[in-house]
């Protein structure tokens, strides 16, 4: 037995590898700085991160839209379009978060390289998670990213509520890891010792009750990560208390990578009607609870948390269809939705970051009259909210269109109807910030500091992307379709 690593394997690991190295470089370049330094913007860290992420993105798309390269590292990962898209979402998010970090962290006197490095490590793990094709790599990647996110959530350790949120996240996360692991154990056992997804799919264990339990437990593990009801409890608390940037990161990257992995996993294991019904139930409850609980929130971040739960519910609809075997092509809406959701959410969190810079406030009332003071930010947030509400001309609409189209054409009319009704409810709370920004007069007691350049850049790019995808979504739709088709080879 010889250790051989093929060119494809190197290429496949390259993006993640670049990210890990970038993280290390950032750590080293910040070594030995004294405490006062944490108030400066440290643009060089962002630059290193940006360069690394751009390199990683370049490396990611070296192979373009080429189909799967087959299993690499003895089935531990693959380098297919689906995975690349997932990794792409994650890395772009990481790029924007890195760019925004400097100004935000400096304002809270906590600008240390750890934040950047953790985001890079986390992004690397997520990229691998999107491409992982065996249980062990999925587990380790998930744990890596989770640990990084726990730390990011509690990054402001001087802040009581941030610590509280981080700890809640940690305890619940570890608890859910237990179930995830148990599920993996069951699957491993009932499929004749298979670890890689393709082996699992090829084995004859599917009909076994323990196998179903295993799939369900894995689903529960992922449900926790994506914040589906009833495993959502952490979401609002953590979102509210954590650093805004970390929340943006969680809201987009964690959810996106988990969804990519879950989708890949479910496409291989299937699950049958039983699991589909359970997923549908989770989806319905998530949509309802997320949207209803968001109605009365004052904290923007908390509102976004509940909205995130609701969006998880919407995103589960295509999974229901996939699992029920009505058509794998419905899965195509997941990459698209996540792209759209990433652009939209980043724009929103960019604005929330901008207003919480220096003050750490995120009340809806703090947006009063924003359209007068900062019309640019107001437009950005408005576009984001409109997109989240699924109103045309935005990416969110096309995403919702794809999901509902899938649901309708597979006969899941009830799900589609509930999605529609809850969307309607969501309009109310998405409009509240719009009302505050545009219809109310600025409150004199609240002065905004100028938004850091990274934030401005992020909001601009993401808002434009949201609208652009909303108007010309064709390419992304095609890409998503293609990517889902490549998973199964």
């Amino acid at each position, binding site marked *: 037995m010889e250790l051989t690593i093929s060119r494809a394997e190197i290429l496949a690991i390259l993006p993640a590898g670049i990210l890990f190295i970038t993280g290390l470089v950032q750590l080293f370049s910040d070594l030995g700085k004294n405490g006062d330094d944490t108030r400066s913007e440290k643009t060089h860290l962002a630059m290193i991160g940006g360069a690394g992420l751009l390199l990683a993105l370049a490396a990611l798309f070296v192979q373009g839209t080429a189909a799967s390269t087959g299993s690499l590292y003895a089935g531990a990962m693959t380098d297919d379009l689906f995975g690349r898209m997932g990794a792409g979402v994650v890395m772009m998010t990481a790029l924007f978060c890195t760019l925004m970090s400097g100004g935000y962290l400096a304002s809270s006197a906590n600008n240390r390289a750890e934040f950047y490095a953790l985001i890079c490590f986390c992004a690397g793990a997520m990229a691998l998670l999107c491409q992982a094709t065996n249980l062990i790599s999925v587990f380790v990647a998930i744990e890596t990213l989770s640990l990084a996110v726990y730390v990011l959530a509690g990054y402001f350790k001087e802040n009581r509520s941030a610590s509280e949120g981080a*700890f*809640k996240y940690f*305890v*619940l996360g570890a*608890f*859910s890891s237990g*179930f995830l692991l148990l599920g993996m154990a069951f699957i491993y056992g009932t499929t004749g010792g298979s670890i890689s997804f393709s082996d699992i799919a090829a084995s004859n264990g599917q009909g076994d*009750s323990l196998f*179903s*339990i295993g799939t*369900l*437990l894995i689903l*529960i593990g992922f449900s*926790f990560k994506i914040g589906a*009801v*009833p*495993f959502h*409890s*952490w979401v*609002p*608390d953590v979102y509210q208390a954590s650093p805004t940037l970390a929340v943006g990161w969680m809201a987009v990257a964690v959810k996106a990578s988990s969804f990519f992995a879950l989708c890949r996993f479910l496409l291989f294991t299937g699950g049958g*009607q*039983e*699991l589909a*019904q*359970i997923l549908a*139930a*989770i989806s319905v409850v998530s949509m309802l*609870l997320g*949207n*209803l*609980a*968001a*109605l*009365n*929130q004052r904290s923007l971040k908390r509102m976004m948390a509940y909205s995130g739960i609701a969006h998880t519910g919407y995103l589960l609809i295509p999974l229901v269809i996939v699992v029920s075997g009505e058509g794998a092509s419905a899965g195509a809406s997941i990459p698209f939705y996540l792209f759209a959701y990433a652009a939209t959410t980043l724009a929103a969190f960019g604005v929330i970051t901008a207003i919480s810079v220096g003050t750490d406030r995120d009340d809806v009332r703090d947006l009063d009259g924003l359209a007068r003071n900062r019309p640019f930010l107001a437009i950005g947030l408005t576009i984001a909210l409109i997109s989240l509400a699924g109103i045309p001309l935005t990416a969110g609409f096309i995403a919702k269109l794809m999901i509902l189209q899938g649901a309708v054409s597979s006969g899941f009319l009830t799900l589609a109807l509930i999605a529609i009704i809850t969307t309607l*409810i969501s309009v*109310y709370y998405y409009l509240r910030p719009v009302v505050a920004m545009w219809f109310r007069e600025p409150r004199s007691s609240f002065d905004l500091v100028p938004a850091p350049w990274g934030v401005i850049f992020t909001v601009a790019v993401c808002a434009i992307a949201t609208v652009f995808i909303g108007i010309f979504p064709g390419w992304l739709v095609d890409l998503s379709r293609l990517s889902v088709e490549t998973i199964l080879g």
Partner: protein
Amino acid sequence: MDIHLLWIPLLPFLGFVFNGLLGRRIGTRAVSAIACGLPIISFLISYRAWRHVVDVGSPQHWDGFPWIWIDGLVEIPFSLHFDGLAAVMCLVITGVGSIIHLYSIGYMRGDPGYHRYFAYLNLFMTFMLLLVLGDNLLLMFIGWEGVGLCSYLLIGFWYEDDANCAAGRKAFIMNRIGDFAFLLGIFLCLTHFGTLAMSALTDVNQIQTVAAQTLTIPLLGSVGLVTTIVVLLFIGATGKSAQIPLYVWLPDAMAGPTPVSALIHAATMVTSGVYLCCRLMPLFQAAPAALTLIAGIGACTALLAALIAFGQNDIKKVLAYSTVSQLGYMFFAIGVGAFSAAFFHVVTHAFFKALLFLGSGSVIHAMHHQQDMRKMGGLRKQLPFTHITFLVGTLAIAGVPPLAGFFSKDEILFAGFEQGFLGGSGAAMLFWGISFLTAGMTAFYMIRCVAMTFWGESRIDPDLEGKVHEPGGWIGLSLLVLAIASALGGFLNVPEFLGGHASLGHFTGLQQGHEGLTEQALHALHAAEWQSMILSLLIAGSGLLLAFHCYGKGKDLRRRFIESGPGQLLGRLSANKFYVDEFYNSVFVRPFETISHLMFILIDRILIDGILVSGTALLTRNVGHLFRKMQTGFIPGYLLTFACGVLVLLFMLLNFLRQGGAQ
């Protein structure tokens, strides 16, 4: 393609546009010149067209352009038609209209809304002429509604006073109610005739085919189609021509300037209902049941209005009710089939009622807008000319030969007499009786009016004493012209038994000839006409005499009657217009408003907005609040939720699996 027909209505319209837009700038003199000049030119054109009709013997027609026109489906052109009937009407309108325009120069002098007034007046002429000339029912409807609009504007001319506006609005709405029925009638015509052209609606063959059909109406059962159409059109006419039940607006309409009352609310607009009936004579004739209804309503209106006129003290109100009463006469005539007589009365009525109104206007003008007759009296001395002309008008309306009213009224009464006694119709007999009685009452209340105004002792406000004097100029001239017309107008249509040729009736095509009758029958007819005439002369004469007595030497008689029980009752009812307005108010207007208000609060505010809309929102929010409360922030709770979630899902899955296994 006689396009000059278009100029008849168009010229006053130009006047309206010009005065309306620039009137304020160009000064009173120019306004008067334009406003009076254009109708006069219109009159001249009408005259020429009339000559043409007389000479050639065939009506003129202007094809116009398509108006509401969907090829093959609804084809309603904007085209004008000028035949004998229209010609006479046009001449009356432009003629009397021009005179009243001239009169207005004097009457309205110094009013701040001078140009506006003339603009409205011109606009009114336009619409009235359009009404007359319109070649189809819908075009007529433009004029129909248009005159209503002008009436509205002119009644409310002095809009600073709330009451005037209310009166204007009342007029418009009452008219609208009538128009609602009119419109339905138009729909029925269009549905069943396929067109609204007058030529089709008056075509006997077409009418016969339509007349065979019936309609089933809820509550009424099966009703003849033509009857329905005629009744609907007649309801439209009751609005415009102030018949029961829609007459209540006309007395209120006296809020407008007096020349307006003369032109619109006496001479022209209010008679358009009669004109409509005459226009569609063949159609009306095909619906005898409807005609009976019309006769009844006409007679009743005539009586009711006359009764009310007894108790009025406002000089214009008396004239207004007399107008209503005279209009009732006209409809009575139509009801008994005497279209020619009705139309003749329209013409003569236009003369003498315009004269009376203008006369009253002259008095009012002289009295500085005092209209209450109780504060007049003895004006004969100060206003001799007005007095004479007014008296001419009064005698004309009372039916004193050989003044205009005598001829027309006599014809009407004879028509009723003929149908009732010669034709043996019980209803017609009754209606004739009413009308006959009314003729006497007319004479009485008109003399009462003259007496209270011009005769007896002066009751004038001491402040005005000495300031009252005859208005000269245009006002005098107008009165003179109209007095002559009132005196001689009757000779337009002298009946055959008096040696005339009934020329107006023949010219308008409304008078049926007696060609079919034998010599003997004709003789009998003439005899009956003589009888009827004598009867009507008697009743008019007794009315006059009684009035002369009561308001001359026999004051005691009058006082005794007034103080007697029936007298008091009648007096109160009459003075309060038989409480009809109050009745309408409490039965229709106020309940409607109250119900609307209730609906607004109950349905809109409470049910829809409150319970359905806000209720849903509130429910959603509260459920959301509940979900919020579930988020306690307590870690053990979260963990427990998590574990329970796992449990539930596991249980669900195993349950599904078991069921799947069982199958």
